[in-house]
């Protein structure tokens, strides 16, 4: 702005509008302030000029009080590095989880067929004697004998124990009855 050039009312209004829209530089704002304060209010007055004058007055008061917007403190380097690491870790953990899921599924299906229990599912009998895998009819016979013997022994044992328990109960009852009779 040229200080020697006298501004028309329209130009002052235009500049005031620009000031209120924050389109002026700091230097231009200062010059406009100078113009508005040097001119008597009745010489340069309109709604937009008056609004600009009022805003300038408030801005000057704030500046005079020494108040300034608190600056955002930058995060210390350690914290910034920590946040960056956390972001990277989160991104890669998703990828790692996907890889583990795929690998686990592949291993599961691959090992299933080699597992003796799935061989068992297909062949129904799996017998090893002295380190040697037995197949065919001999395996079937060994398995049948083993099952029969195991289950028969267990059944006999359970029968014996329950019989003993029953006898114990009867024995206990007979003792109680005898005591009662005595009393």
């Amino acid at each position: 702005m040229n200080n020697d050039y006298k501004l028309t009312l329209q130009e002052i209004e235009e500049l005031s509008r620009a000031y209120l829209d924050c389109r002026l530089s700091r230097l231009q704002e200062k010059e406009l302030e100078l113009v508005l304060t040097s001119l008597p209010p009745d010489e340069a007055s309109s709604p937009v000029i008056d609004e600009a004058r009022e805003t300038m007055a408030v801005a000057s008061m704030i500046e005079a009080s020494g108040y300034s917007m608190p600056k955002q403190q930058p995060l210390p380097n350690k914290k910034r590095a920590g946040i960056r690491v956390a972001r990277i870790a989160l991104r890669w953990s998703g990828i790692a989880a996907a890889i583990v899921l795929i690998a686990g599924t592949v291993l599961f299906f691959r090992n299933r067929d080699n597992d003796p229990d799935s061989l068992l599912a297909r062949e129904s009998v799996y017998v090893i004697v002295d380190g040697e895998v037995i197949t065919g009819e001999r395996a079937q016979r060994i398995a049948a004998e083993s099952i029969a013997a195991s289950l028969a022994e267990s059944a006999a044992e359970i029968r014996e124990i329950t019989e003993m328990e029953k006898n114990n109960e009867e024995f206990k009852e007979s003792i109680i009855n005898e005591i009662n009779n005595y009393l």
Partner: protein
Amino acid sequence: MKRQLATLLLITASIIAVAKPPKLACETVFDREDLRIEGIRIVKSQSGNSNYRSIKFSDGKKYYDDLYKLIIQDKQRAQTVYESFEGKNESILLQIPNNGHQITVSLRRNDDGSVELYISGLTEAFK
């Protein structure tokens, strides 16, 4: 938040994919490769819905204590326990409920020194 949930879901799904159903302690004996040697007989049979596994040691002296520790672990899950001691004969039989069915586990030591462990039940009981 959505990304974190998705990550957690992926991790959980991957753990489930490699995880196996909970086993009895005694079942681990049948996974051992070092027991496929002389003096040991292993039988596994799947007949219809029934599953039977047994391992018999001709000379069970060095294996009995370890087997006994395993069966004591499974005893905590047993609904019924039968134990008998007669001279050198010793036996313990467990009936363990699982998945709505019963699993029978038996460990027996005979007076000739042989030791036998067997596990039997419906296939559904082991799931």
